[in-house]
């Protein structure tokens, strides 16, 4: 699939230019330190913050009034992706554009705003607007309403595996000609309860049958934001970065580090000595966006954007050890390792 456009709402700023500049160290991400009291004692989390600045260029404030912050990020990322692609949707295109969104935690703030009213004012004061915003597909709903998209739509959720599912869905729609292009979005938000929960689960032992917690130091760097890609079929836009393969593997794909110029890495799980992460980092061509963007379940979305932009510019960011310039035939990979023992590998090159 060709990556026709990229839209970013991130702690490094919004839009590809700010994102690219930040990936290159041009400015620091927007962060805030939150200190939380937990039963195990105090813990400080670094929250990597996103904002919806720039949305009014695309949608009137009146039209935005019902959308909460997370919904605005989703809509803005899609608007930016279309703008980056130089695409305006006419009526025909609105029917022929699909929407596949990935989110790990879903719409948390709307959920807790809903519960706040119930707890503080009683069951009869539950807000219907908050309820409507709390279902995960509210993100797609806002995006569809903001852009007039009438094609097929899926909102997919499986924590760190979510991004790959959105990409597979897009690929299938394009292949079976349900659509001509797909907006794929990847995002998560944070909230007080999530931060507390992350802080409070420190060093809790895992019991049998539980998914291993994505526990590592990086868990204290809580990422937020939304990345969107406008995808078309191979050849839709010659010269654009192209997604070649999207695989799920049950064994660690060590060969990816030999086959590709660089591998953008999202490892959820133990990071200590002897771990997969330690081994791969030692290979020298593993790149991590975590120090610049924090970690959220759908972080692989930001990595895909970073990889695509690296191909577009012909050089790697974040900066690798050694040479950053890319050769024309260089390919990149985005690898995600989750704690269920699954690996998701997306490979890209520039057409």
């Amino acid at each position: 699939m060709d990556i026709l456009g990229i839209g970013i709402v991130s702690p490094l700023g919004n839009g590809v230019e700010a994102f690219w500049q930040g990936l290159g160290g041009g400015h620091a991400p927007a962060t805030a330190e939150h200190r939380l009291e937990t039963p195990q004692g105090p813990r400080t989390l670094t929250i990597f913050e996103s904002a919806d600045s720039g949305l009014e260029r695309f949608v009137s404030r009146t039209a935005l009034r019902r959308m909460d912050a997370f919904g605005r990020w989703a809509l803005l990322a899609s608007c930016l992706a279309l703008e980056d692609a130089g695409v305006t949707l006419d009526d025909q295109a609105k029917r022929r554009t699909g929407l596949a969104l990935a989110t790990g935690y879903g719409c948390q703030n709307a959920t807790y705003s809903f519960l706040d009213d119930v707890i503080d004012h009683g069951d009869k004061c539950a807000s219907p607007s908050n309820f409507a915003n709390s279902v995960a597909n509210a993100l797609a709903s806002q995006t569809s309403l903001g852009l007039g998209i009438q094609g097929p739509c899926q909102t997919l959720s499986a924590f760190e595996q979510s991004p790959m599912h959105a990409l597979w869905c897009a690929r299938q729609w394009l292949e079976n000609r349900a659509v001509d292009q797909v907006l794929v979005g990847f995002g998560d938000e944070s909230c007080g309860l999530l931060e507390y929960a992350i802080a409070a689960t420190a060093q809790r032992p895992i019991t049998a049958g539980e998914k291993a917690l994505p526990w590592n130091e990086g868990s204290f760097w809580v990422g937020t934001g939304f990345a969107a890609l406008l995808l078309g079929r191979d050849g839709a836009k010659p010269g654009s970065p192209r997604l070649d393969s999207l695989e799920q593997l049950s064994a660690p794909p060590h060969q990816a580090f030999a086959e590709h110029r660089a591998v953008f890495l999202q490892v959820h799980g133990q990071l200590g000595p002897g771990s997969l992460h330690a081994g791969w980092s030692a290979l020298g061509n593993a790149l991590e966006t975590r120090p610049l963007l924090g970690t959220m379940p759908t972080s692989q979305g930001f990595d895909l954007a970073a990889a695509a932009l690296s191909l577009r510019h012909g050089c790697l960011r974040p900066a690798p050890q050694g040479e950053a310039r890319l050769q024309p035939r260089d390919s990149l990979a985005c690898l995600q390792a989750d704690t269920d023992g699954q690996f998701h590998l997306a490979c890209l090159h520039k057409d």
Partner: protein
Amino acid sequence: MRLEDELKEMLIRELKLVDVKPEDIKDEDPLFGEGLGLDSLDAVEVVVLLQKHYGIEVKGLENNREVFSNIKALAEFVRSKKPQA
């Protein structure tokens, strides 16, 4: 403050009616459809707001369309349920 003005401020704040000021809403301007242009989701939200801010239970909407038609009618309704408002 007149109840009518209080209701206007509440609607603007709670329904997030950006760019609307209380003085822009006349007491007899329609609230739904035309006028302020509120829709069905706003209508159910207003039912909850009356509960939250005035403790008034509105059961269902079908019998209450006149009550919600404009600020004047809404204020009359609130007064009828809460004479001290």
